[in-house]
C-alpha cells in the first residue's frame, strides 16, 4: 500500500503538523453515521503471510488481484489472484524481485503489474532485506521507489510476461480504461531523462516521488504520453466507469498534503475534488459513477479512514470507516455491492485485505444529506 502514498515514513517525524491538521474546522457538524450504515458483513479476506493490500476486482467480480508478502525467501510483495468462488490463490508475478499495483485488463486474459524482476540484483536485494530483518534491527518503513520498476502484463493462458515500459525511474500504479485499450500509470522518469538542477538532484535523493507524474499509454505500451506537470507526487490514477475521466491524487511539494483530482484522459479540465488539508488519496470511482471512495488521515495523522464524496466534490465528504489504524485503498466491486479495502483493524501495523457488503442506497442518501463543502467553487 505504501507506494500510492508515502505512508508513515516522513509523517511520524512531523506529528505536530498532523496534529494541527486535525483541528481544521469543517463546514458543519457531520451527520452521525456508523460504519455499519455503509459496510455490513465485514470480513477479513487475506490471512496468509505478513501483509497484503491493494485488491482490485476482475471485471466479472469473481476474482481479486492483490499484492502480498507470503512466500518464504522473498520479503517483498508479489502479485496474487484470489478466486472468490473456490478460495484458491495463484501467484501471477514471477516470484522474485519487487512487485506492486496489479490490475485485470478488461476483455482479456492479461493482468498488469509493476515489477523489478528483470533487475539482475533482485535476488541479492531479497537476501539483503531478509538478513536485515534477521539482524533484529528495524527501520522506519518507506517505499523505496526503485527506479527499476517497470510495467508488465501476464497472459494467463500462455503464462507469458510482456514488458510495456522501458524508462529509468519508477513506472507503476497502472490501471486500464474500461475498454481495456489504455493504461494510466505513474512514472518518475522525469527525474532521469533530463539534467536536474542541484536543488532537484537533492530532492531526488531525499524523495524521488516529488517527480512522479501521471502518464497514459496504449495497452501494448505504445504512445506513452505525460498528462500532468505539477511538482509533487501525482499518482494512483484510475479511469472513471465511462472511461471519460481519470481520477488520481496529487501531493503538494512537502509530501504531507494530498488531494483528489479528476481530469480528461488527455490531461485537460483538471478539477480538484477534496480539500481536507490532510492526506487524501487512493480515490476510486463507484461503478454508478455518482461518487468517489477515498482515504484520508483527516482525523489523525496515523488514523486513515475511508470517505465518500460526490463525483464533483461539491459536498462535504462523509466518513465510512470507524476503526483505529489504517483503512484505505477502497475499491468497489464491478456490481457496486461490495467493497474491498486494506486495513490494519485486525491488529499490528501490517495491513490485510478486508471485504464487506456495500450499501449503495445509504451512500447516496448520506451524500444528499451532506452539507456543501466550505469554499466550494
Amino acid at each position, binding site marked *: 500500500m505504501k507506494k500510492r502514498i508515502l505512508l508513515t515514513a516522513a509523517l511520524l517525524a512531523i506529528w505536530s503538523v498532523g496534529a494541527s491538521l486535525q483541528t481544521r474546522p469543517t463546514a458543519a457538524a457531520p451527520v452521525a453515521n456508523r460504519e455499519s450504515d455503509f459496510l455490513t*458483513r*465485514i*470480513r*477479513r*479476506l*487475506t*490471512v*496468509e*503471510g505478513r501483509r497484503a493490500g491493494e485488491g482490485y476486482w476482475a471485471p466479472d467480480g469473481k476474482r481479486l488481484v492483490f499484492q502480498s508478502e507470503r512466500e518464504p525467501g522473498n520479503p517483498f510483495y508479489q502479485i496474487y489472484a*484470489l*478466486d*472468490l*468462488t*473456490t*478460495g*484458491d*490463490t495463484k501467484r501471477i508475478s514471477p516470484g522474485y524481485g519487487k512487485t506492486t499495483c496489479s490490475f485485470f485488463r478488461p476483455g482479456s486474459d492479461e493482468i498488469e503489474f509493476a515489477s523489478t524482476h528483470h533487475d539482475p540484483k533482485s535476488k541479492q536485494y531479497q537476501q539483503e532485506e531478509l538478513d536485515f530483518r534477521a539482524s533484529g534491527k528495524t527501520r522506519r518503513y518507506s517505499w523505496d521507489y526503485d527506479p527499476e520498476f517497470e510495467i508488465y502484463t501476464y497472459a494467463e493462458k500462455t503464462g507469458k510476461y510482456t514488458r510495456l515500459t522501458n524508462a529509468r525511474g519508477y513506472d507503476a500504479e497502472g490501471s486500464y480504461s474500461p475498454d481495456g485499450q489504455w493504461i494510466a500509470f505513474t512514472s518518475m522518469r522525469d527525474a532521469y531523462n533530463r539534467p536536474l538542477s542541484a536543488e532537484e538532484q537533492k530532492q531526488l535523493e531525499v524523495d524521488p516521488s516529488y517527480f512522479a507524474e501521471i502518464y497514459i499509454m496504449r495497452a501494448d505500451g505504445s504512445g506513452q504520453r505525460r498528462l500532468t506537470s505539477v511538482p509533487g507526487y501525482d499518482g494512483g490514477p484510475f479511469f472513471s466507469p465511462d472511461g471519460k475521466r481519470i481520477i488520481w491524487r496529487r501531493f503538494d511539494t512537502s509530501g504531507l498534503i494530498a488531494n483528489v483530482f479528476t481530469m480528461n484522459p488527455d490531461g485537460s479540465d483538471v478539477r480538484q475534488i477534496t480539500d481536507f488539508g490532510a492526506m487524501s488519496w487512493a480515490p476510486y470511482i463507484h461503478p454508478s459513477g455518482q461518487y468517489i471512495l477515498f482515504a484520508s488521515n483527516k482525523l489523525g495523522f496515523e*488514523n486513515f479512514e475511508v470517505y465518500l464524496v460526490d463525483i464533483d466534490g461539491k459536498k462535504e465528504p462523509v466518513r465510512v470507516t*470507524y476503526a*483505529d489504524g489504517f483503512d484505505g485503498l477502497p475499491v468497489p466491486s464491478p456490481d457496486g455491492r461490495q467493497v474491498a479495502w486494506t486495513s490494519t483493524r*485486525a*491488529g*499490528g501495523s501490517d495491513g490485510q485485505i*478486508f*471485504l464487506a457488503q456495500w450499501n449503495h442506497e445509504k451512500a447516496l442518501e448520506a451524500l444528499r444529506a451532506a452539507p456543501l463543502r466550505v469554499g466550494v467553487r
Partner: protein
Amino acid sequence: MGQFMKRILIAVLLLSTSVGAQQTAVASRTRAAVEFLASDRLEGRDTGSPGERLAGEYIAMQLARAGAKPLPGHRDMFMPFEFTAGTRDGGSNLTIRGAGGASQAFRGGEQVQALSFSDDATISGAVVFAGYGLVVPESQDFGYDSYAGLDVKDKIVLVLHYFPEDTDAKTKATLARYSDLRYKALAARQRGAKGLLLVTGPRSPNAGQTLRMTFDTALSGSGIPAATIGGAVANALFAGAPKTLAAAQEEFDSGNPHVPGFALATSVDLATKVVREKQTGRNVVAYLPADPGARIPDAGRPWVIVGAHYDHLGHGTRGTSLADKTEAGQIHHGADDNASGTAAVLAIAETLARQRMRRNVMFALWSGEEIGLVGSNAFVTSPPVPMTQVAAYLNFDMVGRMQNNRLAADGVASSPAWSRMLERANVAAGFDLATNPDPYQPTDSSNFNQAGLPTLFFTTGSHTDYHRPSDTADKIDYDDLDRIVDFAVAVIQSVANVDMAPEFTKVDPPQTGATLAGVRVTTGTIPDYTTDAKGLMLAGVVGGGPAEKAGLMKGDVIIEIAGQSITNIYDYTFALELLKADTPVKVVFTRNGERREVQLIPAGRR
C-alpha cells in the same frame, strides 16, 4: 446404558424435537442439540453427574446416527476417566511441644487444616520460620530466596501466606509470581523440609484465618504434607522466639531480601489427611473412517481429531461460577459453553459422513474441561491412537455468540499450514477472522499443543452470561453457528486431504508467570479473547461488579490500571496481583478511540 436412563433419554429427545420443530421455520443443524444439552434436565452437565451421563448418551446416539463408529478395538464410544470431584480435610491435627516439655494440641478447621494438595502423613520435627517462603529462580536475576542461609533439612517449615505487603510495586510484582501455594510447597520440599505450615500473617488480609480447602482436581498429593494454621497456633509456635510473629512479619514486609528466617524454639507433631472423593467422567469418542481407496503417504499421519467439551458447571458450586448472589446455586445451562461447540462437532460429523476423506476423522467430546481440562488430559496421557499418527487437533469452545461477524482462530502459529487453509476456507465462509498465534489457550486444545500437535481453537468469545446460569439456549445465534459448521468442514477437509500432515511448530509459552494465585481482588471485567487489539478489550462487565460500578462497559479497551500499562490479558492478570481490595485505582481506557479515565474500587476475592 441402563434401561431407566434410556427411557428418560428417549422421552426427552421426543420432547425437545417437537418443541424445536415448532420454533424453527428453517431447520438449523445445531439448534436441537444445543437446546437439549442446555436444558434443565441436564442440570448443567457437571463432570461425573447424572446430567453429564445423559449428555454423553445423547452425544453417542447422535454420533451413531450420523454414521460415526467407536474407535477401532473399542466396543462403545465412552472413554471413562477418574478425577477428584472434591477434597475435604480428614481430621488433620497438630501438637506443639515447647522447649520446657509442655505440649498443646490443635485440631479443627479453624486451627489446622490440610492444604488440598497435601500428602497424607504423620511427621514430627523442629520448626523453622522462613518468612514468606518465596524463592525466585536464579534465571530471573532478582535475588530473593527465603531459604538462603537456613537449614530446613528434615525440619518443618512455617511460612507466611502471600508476599511482602509494604514493598514497592515492582518487587511485589516479581514476588507475587512465586507466591502460589503449590510453588511454596515445592520450594520447601526441594530444600529438604519434611512438612510445610502456612499462616496468614497478622499484617495481611484475612489475618490469622485458615484457608478454605480449595477445589483441586489432582488425583494425589504433591509430595509433602502441608497445612494451613490459625493465628493462635502460629503464636503458640512462636513461644520462646526472639520476636513475635507480627514483628517478624513487619521485617519481611519491607521486601528486603536479606531479612533472615530463624529456627523456632518449638517442635511439632503434624498429621495431615486429605480425603479426595474420586469420581468418573466420560469422554465420548467416535470416528468416521477414511475413504478406503484413498492413500496418504506413510508419514502423513492418518488421523485428524475434532473436539469440544460438553461438560459445564452444574449448579456452579465448584470454583469458577460467576453467578451473582441472586443466581447462586441455579443450574448453569452452558448453552454457549459449550453446548454450542458440542452441537457444532455433531453437525460436522453429520456433514463429513456424506463426504470422502483421505484421513480418519475422530470426534472427541470431552468432559472434565471446566474442572481443569481433565478429560482431554486423560485422553492425551493414554491416547487410543498414538499421537504420532494424528495430523492435527481442532477445538470448538464457545462458538454460539457471534458478534460483528467475528470468529477467532487461536493457535495459528502452531503450524505454518494454518493461515493458508484458513484463508482459503474463509473465502466462502466470509467471517471476519481474528487469528491469534498463541496455542496456549484455556481450553482442551492446549493439551494437544503440549502433546506436539498443530492445533486450532475456534471461538466467538466471551460475554456477560459467561459461567452464569443465564448462558441459555435462547441466546445462541444458530444461523452463524451453522455457518461455523460449514467453515469447519472446509478446514477439516483441507487437513484430511493434504498429502503431508501440517508441520508442528513449537511456540514458546507466554513468559508471564502471572497466576491467579496472587490475585486477591476482582474487578468484574470479562476480557474479549477474540481480538488482539492492544490493551485489554472488554467483552462485558459483571453485573454489580467493580468495573460496572466504575462505568466501564463492553468494547472498552483498558490500557492502564494502577499505573501499570496493559497490552494484553497477561499484563492485566499481573497488574491485578498488585491491587488491594477497597483501595481505589485509576483505570485508563479507550472508548471508540477516545482516551478516558475512571476510578475503580477492586472488591475482595474469597
